[in-house]
């Protein structure tokens, strides 16, 4: 039997796209989606599903695409993943669902992510959402969600679908968490997130901005005085890590979080008269090689940087970023300095002028199983730059821990939870990056959904309605 190769998904030309912040991937048309969907073997025992952290019925949703029934496809997808337009774009499919696809053993795996993206986009465009009319729980139950990232949104949606009154409290002035202020719009357009948020609103979920919980209200206040029956903590990852390099205090050095927040949150595309400085110079060196580092370096290119560099002490194969991101960065003209360890930030009059690197080579595997980079003696050299962005991960945010008596944290400051995502404080649940440390969108959503089940169980409510699609 002859297998067709994977149908390539149209993308913007690299030369054009570095001049704009629009979606790099243009996406399948309906005909293309149907064609790609017909490659799926509809396995009886689908291995792809095992690769998906939220066990989406992948043959189900792909089969529906093949039949041209996108609405059915959307309803199958949203049973496990409320925001497919987002996950289809940002999930590391190549190591999850697609890595397990049976076709991948000898051929290209089915393009599950791009198909998911297609259906998500189709639903956004056609205003399709999960069931809107919900029978309220009697007596009424109220749950507060802290943080509007993927974990909080997924939890809010499932609770609302079960008839619970849900209020989402967000510290920032806008909703979506990392989806809004972290991931740049050329990977995840802001209007896609807003459309998904609109769907959550339609379920009756209330959104309150400018409320940093732990400061304006504490969790004990919410439970004891404000009448919430349960609380979900989805506050995400916290403070950026630095490297303790000499010269890290120079002007021109900033964390990836700061850079991305300045660009995505404070200068979002489509809003006029933004003048929060971005601190982006002409020659940028980004330290790190994860998704966050790739986002920074590709953002810098779009802001007009002449040289955009990635500096990473390990080898290309070891870069934690998604393959697609590294590939896109390559196409866009990013310079890669692999096996290069930064040892000092150089400066003059308080400003960055360069980065001193040491060449590395790969030695024996370390505890993580990856070959350990070891320095090559006398290999120091300097790259010239005026901006250094540090993208080497984050630690935990201390605010909720400091202000919630009895909340058990682990040694790194992350919240400890049981199988139902309940913390050491009864009625208080948590999930997403604040529990696991920086992870992925889909894992955060999975945790939010798990917590919703835990909360319903805690409140003694059976989930009544399942997500059913309805047109507007």
């Amino acid at each position: 039997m002859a297998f067709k190769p994977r149908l390539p998904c149209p993308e913007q030309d690299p030369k054009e796209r570095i001049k704009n912040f629009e979606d790099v991937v243009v996406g399948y048309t309906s005909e293309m989606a149907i064609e790609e969907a017909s490659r799926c073997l509809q396995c009886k025992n689908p291995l792809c599903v095992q690769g998906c952290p939220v066990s989406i019925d992948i043959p189900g949703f792909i089969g529906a695409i093949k039949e041209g029934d996108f609405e059915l496809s959307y309803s199958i997808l949203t049973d496990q993943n409320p925001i497919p337009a987002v996950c289809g774009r940002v999930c590391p499919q190549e190591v999850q669902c697609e890595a397990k696809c049976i076709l991948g053993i000898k051929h290209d795996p089915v393009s599950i992510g791009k198909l998911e993206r297609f259906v998500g986009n189709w639903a956004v465009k056609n205003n399709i959402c999960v069931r809107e009319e919900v029978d309220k729980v009697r007596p009424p139950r109220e749950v507060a969600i802290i943080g509007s990232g993927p974990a909080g949104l997924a939890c809010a949606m499932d609770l609302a679908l079960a008839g619970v009154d849900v209020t989402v409290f967000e510290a920032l002035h806008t909703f979506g968490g990392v989806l809004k202020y972290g991931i740049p719009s050329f990977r995840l357009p802001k209007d896609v997130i807003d459309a998904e948020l609109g769907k959550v609103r339609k379920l009756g979920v209330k959104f309150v901005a400018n409320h940093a919980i732990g400061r304006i209200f504490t969790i004990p206040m919410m439970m004891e005085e404000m009448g919430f029956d349960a609380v979900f903590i989805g506050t995400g990852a916290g403070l950026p890590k630095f490297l303790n390099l000499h010269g890290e205090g120079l002007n021109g050095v900033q964390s990836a979080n700061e850079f991305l927040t300045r660009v995505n949150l404070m200068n979002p595309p489509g809003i006029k008269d933004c003048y929060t400085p971005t601190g982006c110079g002409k020659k940028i060196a980004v330290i790190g090689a994860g998704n966050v580092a790739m986002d920074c370096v590709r953002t810098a290119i779009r802001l007009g940087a002449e040289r955009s560099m990635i500096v990473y002490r390990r080898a290309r194969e070891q870069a934690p970023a998604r393959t697609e991101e590294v590939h896109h960065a390559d196409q866009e003209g990013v310079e890669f300095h692999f096996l290069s360890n930064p040892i000092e930030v150089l400066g003059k009059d308080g400003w960055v002028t360069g980065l001193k690197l040491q060449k590395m080579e790969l030695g024996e595997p370390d505890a993580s199983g990856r070959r350990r980079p070891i320095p090559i003696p006398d290999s120091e050299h300097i790259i010239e730059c005026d901006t250094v962005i540090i993208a080497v991960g984050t630690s935990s945010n201390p605010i909720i821990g400091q202000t919630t008596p009895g909340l058990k944290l682990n040694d790194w400051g992350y919240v400890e939870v049981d199988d139902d995502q309940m913390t050491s404080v009864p009625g208080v649940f948590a999930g997403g990056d604040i529990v696991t440390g920086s992870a992925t969108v889909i894992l955060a959503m999975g945790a939010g959904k798990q917590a919703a089940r835990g909360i319903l169980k805690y409140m003694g409510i059976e989930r009544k309605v399942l997500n059913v699609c309805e047109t507007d």
Partner: protein
Amino acid sequence: MFQIIKHEQFSPITFMWEVLAPDLAKASEPGQFVMVRIREGGERIPLTIADYDVEKGTITLMIQAVGRSSNEMNDLKEGDYLLDLMGPLGIPSHIDRKDGRVVLVGGGLGVAPIYPQLRKYKETGNYTISIMGFRNEDLIFWADKFLKYSNEFHIATDDGSAGTKGFVTTVLDDVLQRNDDIVEVVAIGPLVMMKACAEVSRKYGIKTIVSLNTIMVDGIGMCGSCRVTVDGEVKFACVDGPDFDAHLVDWDELMVRQKRFDREESHAQDCWDKECRAKKKFEEGQ
């Protein structure tokens, strides 16, 4: 949306707002701050809560127009609304009954944010010595409020038009020399002034607390913009502060870092000036 229910001009570039925000007022404690954004596309600006009134449900902000955002703020009037107001942020100042006297030093606009601390020190039963410093007599504000909560009260002006001629540090040095039972100094004002106060009190080995106004974006411990080096370690002013031990702060680094967006900020200000001139011309032509 948060309404400005009172606007008072103290000088052409210094003004005070009372903003209606009942939940925020209720949660506020001395030493905390808010983040303000006045319009879509605007910057998020950190401002210290200079006072709060739980009954009226208001907080008081004292602002100096130094750049584009603060100048735009100066154009807002009584009855206008702030688009976003988030707080109270930061760890409240640690204020308890001390075994000795406390000195509170406010420089220029720093007089406002130190006021709630002065009041709380006094109300907790401490002996308070306050020192306020201004460039000249015309800029003085809140002297009456300070008098009410100070056992001893001093004013310094750069030109000698009121109180002692010179800087607050001159008075501070004098006060520390005359009293041997001072256990704590709190200083708030421009960086140079806080650094200078730290140098004075260091000589006497007296614990000194400053409130650091580092550049911020989110204010909740996510971005790292507000980092400062304290005792050789990276700290974040929005969640670990804003209060820090003045003798452990790396002042030189902080002073350099405070200028890191000057080039971009002055461009924004220039654009604004041009817009204002154009607008004025247009209005004059009408």
